C-alpha cells in the first residue's frame, strides 16, 4: 500500500466565520464527510490557504464537538491575513492534529486553574469546553479560569465568557491591562489575579497559555503560591513549519515543540534554556 504523504493537506470547508475583534476571527471547519478531527485540547493543525501558504493554528473547540472543529486566527502573517478574505463555503487545507495537548485523563479528580493571556485563550478554550462538558464536568474538581486581556475590546468568545461567569461550577476571574470606557472590573496584568486565589496545593494543576513574556511571571507567581513545577502545564508558541518534527524550526534544545508539545508539563522544559 502506498504510504500516506504527510505533507498533503485535506481539503476542508469553512462552515462559519465570525469576526471576534479587530484582529481575531473565528472559523468553524468541516473535514470531508464531517469526520471528527479527533484532537486533544491544546493540539494544533497546519492550515493552508490556496496560493498563500501554511501556518500552525491551535484548535479551539472541545474534544467532544461533533462534525466540525473551531479555531480563532489572529491576523499577523500571510496565511492569517489571507484567511480574513475567505467566506463561508471557501476551502482550506488542513493537516493534523499534531503534537501533544492536555491529557485530561491525568487531570481527573483535580482542581484545574486555567490561566489565559490574550490569544492564549484559544487553545485553552478547547480544554475548558472539554472539562466543563455536561457529561464530563463531574470528573474534575474546581475549575478556575483566569483571563487577562489588553482591553475589554479584545475579549474573545464574549458570549462564553458570560456563561462561565454565571456558572456556579466555574470560578471566573478576569482582568485588563488598560481600562477603557465601560469597564468596571480588575485592571492589571494577569499575575495580579493569582495572589488572591485559595488553592488546594496538593490537588491542583494549572494550565497556562499566553504571550511569551507572560510565562515567566505567571510561573513565579504560582510557585510562590506553593504549586510545584509538576503541577504546571504550559503551551508554547514556536514556528512550526512542518508539524511533524522534521523542519527544525520549533526545536528547543533537544525537543521538537510540534511533536512533544506544544503542551508541556513544566518539569519537562524547565531545564531547557530558550524554552521560556
Amino acid at each position: 500500500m502506498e504510504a500516506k504523504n504527510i505533507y498533503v493537506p485535506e481539503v476542508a470547508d469553512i462552515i462559519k466565520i465570525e469576526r471576534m475583534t479587530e484582529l481575531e476571527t473565528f472559523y468553524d471547519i468541516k473535514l470531508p464527510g464531517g469526520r471528527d478531527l479527533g484532537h486533544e485540547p491544546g493540539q494544533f493543525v497546519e492550515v493552508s490557504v490556496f496560493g498563500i501558504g501554511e501556518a500552525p493554528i491551535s484548535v479551539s473547540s472541545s474534544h467532544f464537538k461533533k462534525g466540525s472543529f473551531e479555531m480563532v486566527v489572529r491576523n499577523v502573517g500571510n496565511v492569517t491575513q489571507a484567511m480574513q478574505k475567505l467566506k463561508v463555503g471557501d476551502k482550506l487545507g488542513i493537516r493534523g492534529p499534531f503534537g501533544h495537548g492536555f491529557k485530561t485523563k491525568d487531570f481527573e479528580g483535580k482542581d484545574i486553574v486555567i490561566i489565559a493571556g490574550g490569544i492564549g485563550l484559544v487553545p485553552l478554550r478547547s480544554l475548558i469546553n472539554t472539562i466543563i462538558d455536561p457529561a464530563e464536568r463531574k470528573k474534575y474538581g474546581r475549575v478556575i479560569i483566569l483571563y487577562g486581556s489588553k482591553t475589554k475590546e479584545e475579549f474573545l468568545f464574549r458570549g462564553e465568557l458570560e456563561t462561565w461567569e454565571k456558572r456556579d461550577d466555574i470560578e471566573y476571574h478576569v482582568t485588563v491591562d488598560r481600562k477603557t470606557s465601560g469597564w468596571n472590573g480588575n485592571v492589571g496584568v494577569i499575575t495580579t489575579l493569582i495572589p488572591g486565589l485559595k488553592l488546594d496545593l496538593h490537588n491542583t494543576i494549572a494550565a497556562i497559555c499566553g504571550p511569551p513574556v507572560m510565562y515567566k511571571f505567571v510561573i513565579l507567581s504560582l510557585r510562590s503560591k506553593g504549586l510545584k513545577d509538576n503541577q504546571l502545564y504550559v503551551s508554547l508558541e514556536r514556528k512550526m513549519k512542518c508539524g511533524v518534527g522534521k523542519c527544525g524550526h520549533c526545536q528547543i534544545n533537544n525537543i521538537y515543540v510540534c511533536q512533544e508539545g506544544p503542551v508541556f508539563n513544566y518539569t519537562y522544559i524547565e531545564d531547557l534554556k530558550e524554552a521560556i
Partner: protein
Amino acid sequence: MSAKAIAREKIPDAVLLLKTKYRVIAPVPKGKTFVFKKIDDPQEIVLDYNTTILPLKKFFLPPREVLVEYNLKKQEYREPEIKSEPTVFFGIHNYELQGILRLDYAFGTGVKDETYLKKRKNNIFIGVTYTPDDFHFAKSVGIPTDLKEGFDIFLTKYNSHYRVEALTDKGKSIVSQWSEFLEECSYDSDPVVHFKNKLKQSVAGIREVFHGAYNHPVWKETSKKCYSCGTCNLVCPTCYCFDVSDEVVLGTNRGSRSRRWDSCQILGFTEVAGGEAFREKRYDRVRHRMSRKFAYIMDDRDRPFCVGCGRCIRQCTANISITDVMNALL
C-alpha cells in the same frame, strides 16, 4: 589471503556496465574540488578525492523540492511524482554513507517522511577507502576508515588496484557481472590509514560534556568570527532543517509548496509570526548547531549527528572549526 580485485584502469568499464541498468552517481572533479554527479562518461570519475562540496544528501533532500502541488481553481492538493530510479552511488566514503544513515533515522522514525524515503528506494552503494586529510575527523566521531556499514560493495585501495568485497546480495549480483574485469589477488592486511585524532575525547559520553556548557565562553568567542551565513549547515551531511514556502506561477492557477534547505544559524530561523526570535543572539545559534550535532540529536544507537567529514571546517570562510570548539569544551 586471496580475494577479488579490480585494476584502476578497468573501473570505467565496470561503471559502463552498471550504466546499462542504473543511473550512476560518482565523484568528479570541479575546479580544485569535487562534486557528486550523474555520470555520462565513466572516465570523469575520480576515486582519489578528499570530499565533495555537497554531501550525498542533495540527491535525497534536494536544496529545493516540491512537497505539494495544487490548483487554485480546482482547489486540490496533490503529491508530486517522486522518482526513485535505480541508482548506484559509486566511490562513496564511509562517513558519507553514515550521513545518509543519520538522515534515514531522522526521516524514517517518528512520522515517516515519504518525500525523502521514496528516493531512498532502489539505491546501491559502492564504497571506497580514502586517505584522510587535515579536515577529516570521522574516526574521532566513531567512524573508523574500515567501517563498511550500509555498503553493498566496498573497494579497498591497494596501489594500482582495488580489492572488491560484495557485502550484500545486491552487491554480490553486481560483482558476479563484473567477473571479466576482476582478477584474483592476495593480500596480507588492509593498508594502514594514518588518522590523527582531532577530538580530545571519544564520542562515547560526549553528550554529557554539554551539561553545564550552556554558558561556556567558547560560544561567544566563536560567534564573534561567525557571519551566520549558514554554509556549515548547508554542506553538512546530517543537517536537514528546511523552510517551507508557497509559490503560484504568475498568471496561472498552478501553485506549489516547496521545502528549501534552511540553516539554524540564520536569525529568522526561529522567528514566530509576532516577530520574536527565540535564538536572537548569534552565540545562541552557534551553540545550537554544535549542541544539535553532539547532544540534542542522536540516532537509535546513540551516535551523534556529526560524521566527521570536515566540510563545515573546510568551507567556513571565517575559519571556524567544529573540532576546535568541541575541544574547548572537553
